[in-house]
């Protein structure tokens, strides 16, 4: 019974495939695997926009939207209708083809990246051996679209926003990928399905997820910070800077294209959070052995919603980082931390289980953190300003 609830979607798919004639089976199988992605994640996007607005409202001592529907629950529908019925303004001097293609080029790779995430037991759309590599490759394709949007708008502010966005995204790719290298080293494979399986055992009170090890915790935090930067999420939302350069690289977009950008940004956040869950938080495993009766896909989405809530929490708390602060953080803090983290993962793997292993690992995380943190706080040495020609 428990088993069947867990595998209900797999059974449903097999039952539906029974109705399809032989030579259409492959196509039908592909469509049936992918259709849930196109249904569930945009629905989750709608729920997230509502959660975000109401959550941010409560953090800021006010109600969120509460006029449309009871407690504002129909607000996403109103937003969707608004986005669809707004006039689609294309600037006269804009490069029309590129301007049209930019949102499309953004949305398609994001949907592609959902295909390799194991959402539950046996519930992965495409079981690739190099799934992690595929995910990062496709995620990097989104940066092209940001530049296309900024360039084609023929607007200097859009271009400036796009340049900054690309600089940010490229800088934070390195901590993102290197923090997953530790996990790949330990498990020995790039396949997300096998990485989740490797975290399936339970020892004592805590499960064997990588986040409960010192290097795993550090790696997870670095991964999440880099994930926030990759999806242009506060406090790294300078390219989209709502109150500064208005909308940055998508300033010239309105109506449906704007909705597509918005959708793609949030879906990117879900995808990268999903990957973080797969790598560090044990994927679809339950936190306690006794809770395994609850289906695996429920745990995956519960963890995803928890991470989304933490992102919303951080957005409501931390002020936006300036461009140079952002770049300093990436290159001077995160990259050294993540390189030492890889060493820490290896140390953990090769030492014998016991107190010594814990102490060395914790020292390898805390030491560099304090030292690098101190270097970030150093004030610039200010000298009296001399003018070359004005004397």
């Amino acid at each position, binding site marked *: 019974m428990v088993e069947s609830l867990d595998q209900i979607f797999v059974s449903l798919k097999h039952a539906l495939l029974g109705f399809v004639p032989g030579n259409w089976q492959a196509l039908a199988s592909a469509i049936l695997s992918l259709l849930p992605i196109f249904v569930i994640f945009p629905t989750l996007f709608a729920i997230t926009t509502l959660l975000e607005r109401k*959550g941010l409202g*409560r*953090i*800021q*001592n*006010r*109600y969120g939207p*509460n006029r449309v529907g009871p407690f504002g629950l129909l607000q996403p529908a109103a937003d969707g209708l608004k986005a669809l019925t707004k006039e689609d303004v294309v600037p006269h001097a804009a490069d029309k083809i590129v301007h049209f293609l930019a949102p499309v080029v953004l949305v398609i790779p994001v949907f592609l990246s959902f295909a390799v995430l194991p959402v539950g037991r046996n519930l992965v759309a495409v079981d690739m051996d190099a799934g992690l590599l595929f995910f990062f490759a496709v995620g990097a394709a989104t940066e092209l679209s940001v530049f296309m949007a900024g360039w084609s708008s023929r607007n200097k502010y859009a271009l400036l926003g796009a340049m900054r966005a690309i600089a940010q995204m490229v800088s934070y790719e390195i901590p993102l990928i290197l923090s997953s290298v530790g996990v790949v080293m330990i498990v020995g494979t790039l396949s997300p399905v096998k990485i989740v399986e490797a975290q399936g055992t339970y020892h004592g009170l805590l499960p064997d997820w990588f986040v409960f090890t010192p290097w795993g915790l550090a790696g997870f935090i670095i991964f999440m910070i880099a994930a926030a930067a990759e999806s242009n999420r506060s406090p790294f939302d300078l390219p989209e800077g709502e109150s500064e350069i208005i909308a940055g690289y998508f300033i010239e977009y309105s109506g449906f294209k704007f909705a597509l950008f918005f959708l793609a940004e949030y879906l990117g956040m879900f995808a990268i959070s999903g990957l973080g869950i797969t790598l560090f938080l044990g994927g679809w495993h339950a936190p306690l052995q006794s809770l395994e009766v609850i289906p695996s896909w429920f745990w995956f989405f519960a963890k995803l919603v928890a991470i989304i809530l933490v992102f919303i*929490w*951080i957005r*409501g*708390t*931390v002020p936006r980082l300036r461009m140079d602060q952002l770049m300093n953080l990436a290159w001077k*803090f995160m990259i050294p931390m993540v390189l030492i983290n890889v060493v820490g993962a290896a140390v953990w793997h090769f030492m014998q289980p016991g107190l010594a292993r814990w102490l060395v690992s914790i020292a390898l995380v805390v030491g560099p*953190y*304090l030292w*690098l*943190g*101190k270097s*970030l*706080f150093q004030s610039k040495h200010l000298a009296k300003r001399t003018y070359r020609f004005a004397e």
Partner: protein
Amino acid sequence: MLGEGIIKGMAETARNFLGSYVSDERLTTVQYPEERIPQIENARQFPFLVFDGDDWHAGMRCVACQICEKECPPKCIYIEKSKDKKPDYVGKPQIYPAKFDIDLSVCMSCQICVEVCPFEAIKMDTEYELSTTDRFGGLMVDKQQLAKSNDYYRKIHPTEAAEVDARLAAEKAKAEAKAKVDAEAKAKAAAAPKPVPPAPAVVAA
């Protein structure tokens, strides 16, 4: 230490979030059309004319002296005097305004008309939900719309109304006392024997 400020900030934010469900201090929004913030006593919006008693026309205190019309900075008051007279609160016949229009779209709520009125006839109302869709005459209010009773005045500005009522009652008492003294003097004068004119002196012939 790096990150300390962020952790403290997140604790404060969490406190705000959770507190907004339990305490009013953490969620100060007043949902406007359904709830309203009660106004303080000294709030003022636009003027109204005070009347005593039940009949708005007979009890109106305004005697059309036109001081408020002359003192109004944007000249939003328009008064026409009446031809007949009606008794005021001490009983003395006074003229009254046949027309008393205020253009609320011009009025700037400076309260000068209230300050200069010698008869406590015009006071500031606190009603602010006056918007209308008629952009030409919709905000021109006439005498009947402006007339509100003294009980209403007591309700919206209790301290001021109490002071005004006390003063008017004192003046009324003084006027009545004076009238009584006058009446007594007149009665005494009427009752006293008339002075007999001295008999003409008989001239000896």
